[in-house]
């Protein structure tokens, strides 16, 4: 497999995907050589997160069928990684972007998206991300011709991005060795699309989704399905397992990963690795395994959130 760094690229869009897998030698030690643990480093995408894959796919598919065309503005409600992806591909493809975010979102997020020329519309700080979604729907309803609204929770291009890229990359790198794949559920696009491709493989691969154990949690980007609006693209019957993860365990494993493997990842990546460790510990005695945990982004993106930022978005 060639990595993207060896390629001469024509635009930022060509930098998306083909992210590296890195072994976790320190974390593997407890399994005495029976278990290979790999981290899929999605922060190596140009926008710094896994969301570059669905962001680009949603825009390209909309360009192909005319939902996105000259004169349209891209609009969505997101203060997180998807907003960064829209902003950078909007800039690169020549389409202006508007993001609706609650008024009290962190200054760092405003600065990152505005750097790409993105316009920010603020919704009520008291209504959190649901308030932002309601405002986007209202703006789109008032002037439907003006906007292209990808709606990542319902857009089939979101899981398709992973069916076409993440899944094949894992099979190309590990092939028949791969026994387990673990990733968190946010929109569910990553786990659904990757699972669909892995389930086509000739050998069974156990696909495990990680969700926060409780509605009140600190695993940013992940969704507690029982207390959330369930995304239209989420079909849990296609997964082998949905594992509830306590916030503390995800944070602890993320911190262990920083300290022992030397890579500073976000908490949702820590939760995925924590899930892989649980799967490895429950393997029947003597059974071998090769697992991949997907790491959505870097820890730097959350630095203002480590107890230093006041009144963040609910």
């Amino acid at each position, binding site marked *: 497999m060639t990595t993207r760094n060896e390629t001469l690229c024509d635009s930022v869009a060509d930098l998306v995907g083909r992210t590296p897998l890195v072994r976790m030698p320190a974390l593997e030690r407890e399994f005495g050589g029976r278990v290979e643990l790999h981290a899929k480093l999605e922060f190596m995408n140009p926008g710094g997160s896994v*969301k570059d894959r669905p962001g680009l796919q949603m825009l390209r598919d909309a360009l192909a069928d005319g939902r996105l065309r000259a004169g349209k503005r891209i609009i969505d409600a*997101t*203060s*997180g*990684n*998807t*907003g960064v992806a829209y902003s950078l591909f909007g800039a690169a493809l020549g389409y202006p972007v508007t993001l609706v*975010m*609650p008024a009290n*979102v*962190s200054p760092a*997020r405003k600065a990152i998206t505005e750097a790409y020329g993105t316009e920010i519309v603020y919704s009520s700080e008291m209504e*959190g*991300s*649901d308030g*932002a979604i309601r405002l986007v729907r209202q703006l789109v309803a008032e002037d439907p011709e003006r906007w292209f609204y990808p709606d990542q*929770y319902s857009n089939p291009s979101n899981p398709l991005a992973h069916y076409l890229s993440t899944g094949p990359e894992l099979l190309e790198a590990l092939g028949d060795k791969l026994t387990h794949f673990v990733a968190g559920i*946010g*929109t569910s696009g990553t786990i659904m699309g990757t699972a669909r491709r892995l389930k086509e493989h000739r050998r069974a691969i156990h696909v495990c989704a990680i969700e926060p154990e*409780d*509605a*009140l*949690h*600190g*695993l*940013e*980007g*992940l*969704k*507690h399905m029982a*207390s*959330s609006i369930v995304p239209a693209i989420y079909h849990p019957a296609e997964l082998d397992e949905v594992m509830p993860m306590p*916030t*503390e365990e995800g*944070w602890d494993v993320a911190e262990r990963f920083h300290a022992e493997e030397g890579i500073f990842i976000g908490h949702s990546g820590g939760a995925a690795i924590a899930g892989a460790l649980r799967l490895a510990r429950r393997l029947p005695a003597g059974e071998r395994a090769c697992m991949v945990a997907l790491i959505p982004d870097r820890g730097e993106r959350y630095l203002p*959130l*480590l*107890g230093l930022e*006041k*009144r*963040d*978005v*609910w």
Partner: protein
Amino acid sequence: MATVRISTPLRKLTNGQEEVKAEGATIGAVLADLEKNFPGIKERLCDESGQVRRFVNIFANEEDIRFLANLDTPVKDSDEISIVPAIAGGAG
């Protein structure tokens, strides 16, 4: 009694109320009073040793209690206390 603002994920414990009243001279006492009226809430906010969970932020009049006196932070009747998860937004 102080006013306590409750974030969305905790509202099922407060019967959907966004704001509740609670008694106590310190944040710790306010949390104990909340537990009396809304059983189960303290366990969500505090770990086994009684400390506020790392992913929960409690603000007394917009100041993070970690930078004040933590659970010993004094509370006046006119104070507004907010309980907020330490994450922004929903799934990005």
